[in-house]
């Protein structure tokens, strides 16, 4: 579709503001003014609406398509949580209000949401405290690593390394590196789990933490997780839990009970807030009580009289990692989701998520290489002949492709996370398409190469994109 800037016509207006009801003010000195008006498009309301409505129609999305994008938990998000996030008492609330005297009284509902959410997440994960502030999973990781650094600093230790399995999500090493650590990669063994011997080798007193995802990105539960945790703790290292895959174990086991010290959750994955085409998310971080004193300020506390307020007096805090209290509206949606499901509902969630993934694995096992052919947790990883071709073929069948070429340690990986909200009928349709893709990739690979053909554009020249670096119409 034509770019919106090209649809501009001088003089057209969409939003009109009320005429000024105050006296004209003296013009600002010219040196403070921009030379020419910003070249934004001039459009009617219809122009804007038709443009973006038709753009939206060029997307696949959970509401329109099966979207088994591995590691992203593209579950269906109950609609009413959107309504809640639009309630004026939440959506229009100024974040500085609780920092004004008497203003806190007028934010009690919002603070209660944050407080209750922290309690719920502690209960779900077995941690002692949470900060709701991180805006996404990676942001949570960075916060978590900063907490780990603060912990060691408080012990007057300056440890240098963080250990990360080679199956880890890219954000883990990136977050640790950005926080100032060096990364040591731990390879996976032939079962797709952490190679403990290798771990032992690297696990020195200079290691600040091990960052793990459990189940890992192969969809496998680390069977020796307690052993790993014990080893780490023996060396004074902390255990970090990347909670992106919590959907697999909700209500079944708690990272806190498995020996983890720090955890981040992806509310936009496990707790069902929509992914927004790439965000916003929320990545709350939970810690065991030994680390609570380091949590970022402010902290929401409940006074004896039942009032909620913000506590900034945390001498050992790592400081401020967000302007306020986190992506509040995202947290709010997740809170509503948890209340809706309740404990039983959360347990059913993980059971169904794991069942759905195993159903797919069982049905597709014989058509694809399954690098680790055991049972999986909430997602399974298959290896295709050509993952990219299969992905594009699925698009033509109305299915959003699985995550491909990740984890990096599996060749031609197809990482499939069906989630609990999809029906057997949908899974069966997906399985049927996958089998057809497998057949075609043997019998007629050329046909696959032409896919997708039903989309507004076919395969794109990504090299040209990177070379031209045309990233804005200036």
């Amino acid at each position, binding site marked *: 579709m034509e770019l919106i800037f090209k649809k501009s016509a001088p003089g057209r207006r969409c939003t009109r503001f009320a005429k000024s009801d105050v006296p004209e003010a003296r013009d600002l000195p010219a040196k403070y003014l921009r030379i020419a008006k910003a070249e934004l498009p001039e459009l009617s309301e219809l122009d804007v609406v038709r443009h973006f409505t038709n753009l939206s129609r060029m997307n696949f999305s959970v509401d329109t398509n099966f979207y088994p994008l591995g590691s992203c938990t593209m579950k269906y998000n109950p609609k009413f949580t959107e309504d809640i996030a639009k*309630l004026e008492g939440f959506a229009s609330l100024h974040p*500085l209000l609780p920092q*004004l005297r008497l203003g806190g009284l007028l934010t009690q509902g919002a603070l209660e949401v944050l407080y209750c959410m922290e309690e719920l997440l502690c209960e779900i994960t077995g941690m002692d405290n949470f900060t709701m502030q991180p*805006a996404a999973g990676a942001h949570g990781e960075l916060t978590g690593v900063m907490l780990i650094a603060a912990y060691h600093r408080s012990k007057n230790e300056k440890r240098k390394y963080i250990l990360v399995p080679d199956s880890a999500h890219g954000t883990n090493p*990136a977050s640790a590196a950005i926080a100032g650590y060096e990364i040591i990669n731990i390879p996976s063994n032939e079962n797709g789990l952490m190679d403990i011997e290798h771990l032992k080798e690297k696990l020195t007193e200079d290691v600040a933490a091990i960052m793990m995802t459990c189940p890992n990105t192969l969809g496998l539960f680390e069977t020796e997780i307690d052993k790993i945790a014990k080893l780490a703790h023996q060396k004074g290292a902390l255990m970090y839990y990347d909670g992106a895959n919590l959907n697999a174990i909700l209500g079944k086991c708690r990272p806190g009970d498995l020996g983890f010290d720090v955890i981040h959750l992806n509310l936009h994955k496990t707790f069902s807030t929509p992914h927004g085409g790439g965000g916003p998310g929320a990545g709350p971080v939970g810690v065991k009580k030994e680390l609570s004193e380091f949590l970022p300020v402010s902290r929401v506390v409940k006074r004896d009289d039942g009032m909620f307020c913000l506590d900034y007096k945390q001498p050992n805090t790592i400081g401020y990692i967000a302007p306020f209290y986190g992506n*509040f509206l*995202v947290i709010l949606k997740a809170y*509503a989701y948890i209340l809706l499901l309740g404990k039983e509902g959360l347990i059913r969630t993980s059971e169904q998520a794991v069942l759905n993934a195993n159903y797919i694995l069982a049905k597709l096992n014989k058509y694809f290489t399954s690098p680790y052919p055991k049972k999986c947790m909430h997602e399974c990883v298959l290896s295709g002949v050509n993952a990219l071709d299969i992905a594009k073929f699925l698009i033509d069948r109305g299915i959003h492709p699985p995550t491909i070429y990740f984890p990096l340690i599996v060749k031609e990986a197809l990482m499939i996370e069906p989630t609990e909200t999809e029906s057997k009928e949908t899974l069966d349709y997906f399985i049927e398409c996958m089998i057809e893709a497998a057949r075609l990739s043997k019998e007629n690979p050329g046909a696959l190469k032409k896919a997708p053909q039903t989309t507004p554009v076919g395969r794109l020249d990504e090299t040209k994109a990177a070379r031209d670096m045309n990233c804005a119409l200036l």
Partner: protein
Amino acid sequence: DGKSEFEVMRHLKNLSAKNATDLVCFVGAGFYDHYIPSVVDHLANRAEFYTAYTPYQPECSQGTLQAIYEYQSAICRLTGMEIANASLYDGGTALYEALMMARRITGRNRVLVDDAVSPIYRTIIYSYTKNLDIEFVEVPVQHGQSDRAAIKKHLDDKVACIILQNPNFFGAIDDHSDISCDAHRVGALVVESAYPLSLGLLKTPGEMGADIATGEGQSLGLPLSFGGPYLGFMSTKREFARKMPGRVVGETVDTNNRTGYCLTLQTREQHIRREKATSNICSNEALCALRAVIYLSCVGKEGLAQVAKLNYEKAEFAKSLIGKIKGVSVKKNSPTFNEFTVVLPRDPKEVIAAMIEKGFAAGFPLTRYYKDMENYMIVAVTEKRTKEEIVCYAQSLESVLWS
């Protein structure tokens, strides 16, 4: 145990009703009560937008991709820069990313920070860099604007960048062109944190010679939301593109030579580069960026200028009334946009509490962040404030102070 939708809805409606909904808002401090055209919500609520994820598969994500490309274009045009990313978490973390980027580009470790950069953001950047080898130099403000002499004193070839903000936290407008010149002379970069709505009127970071522009996009069609989700934007010069953090969408063609959009420059990113990535960011604020580009399309070239002017005029009107109140003075050493500093004859904390009882969120006390500014508060006036509300505000303030 689980509850029905109706029960959860009722519970949360009750909680929502405990929050303020009818305070007339004169609080800003970087987060403003602007009007959001209805269209923004309607379009951002398209399920195909908000229930999709990062457009890894471009063929079935052209909607999101083109919208981001248009967002990037709009941010470039707004800030006067050449390339923008697809969003960062918020204005504060964007500033942190900017200084990390400046450090990568220059290989230097000293950062000058103007004291009038939002203290909310300054605390953030200090927190993130605690474990890193970065030396910060805070430069106090002179008459409400950046202190040229002090900056010059600290500028040398050790400096990675200087961080500025316009309008600054006190509301003052400045033209930082001269500082950019000085900085570039010693190979330092200029990072400018901007208030995007003000750019309907004010000189752009690009025009001032900034190398990296960042800021909080909340004013572009995002509700205040008790602090989030917000929108960190970042734009820069083309030469720095590969050092920039975050997702970027680029234009290209498909096998039939049709124009299309895809994520590009991914080799900078964590999912490819892992510990060597320019940033750890993965999920960003895409839907907020979508809202911003819809907002900017709605108001358009003329509308943005108009709304910026309205903000300016209403604030000037408020200044004129407030300045007349006995014992109250409005700081006038530099021009302002829609926020300004007021000196009260009493502790603003008490005054603000009394004003809340009259239905106004009256302003933000500066003493929270600036110890020596005990009787100072900043007051913001957006286009939503009517003459009547402003008059009533001034009258209430007078009566709080003097009766």
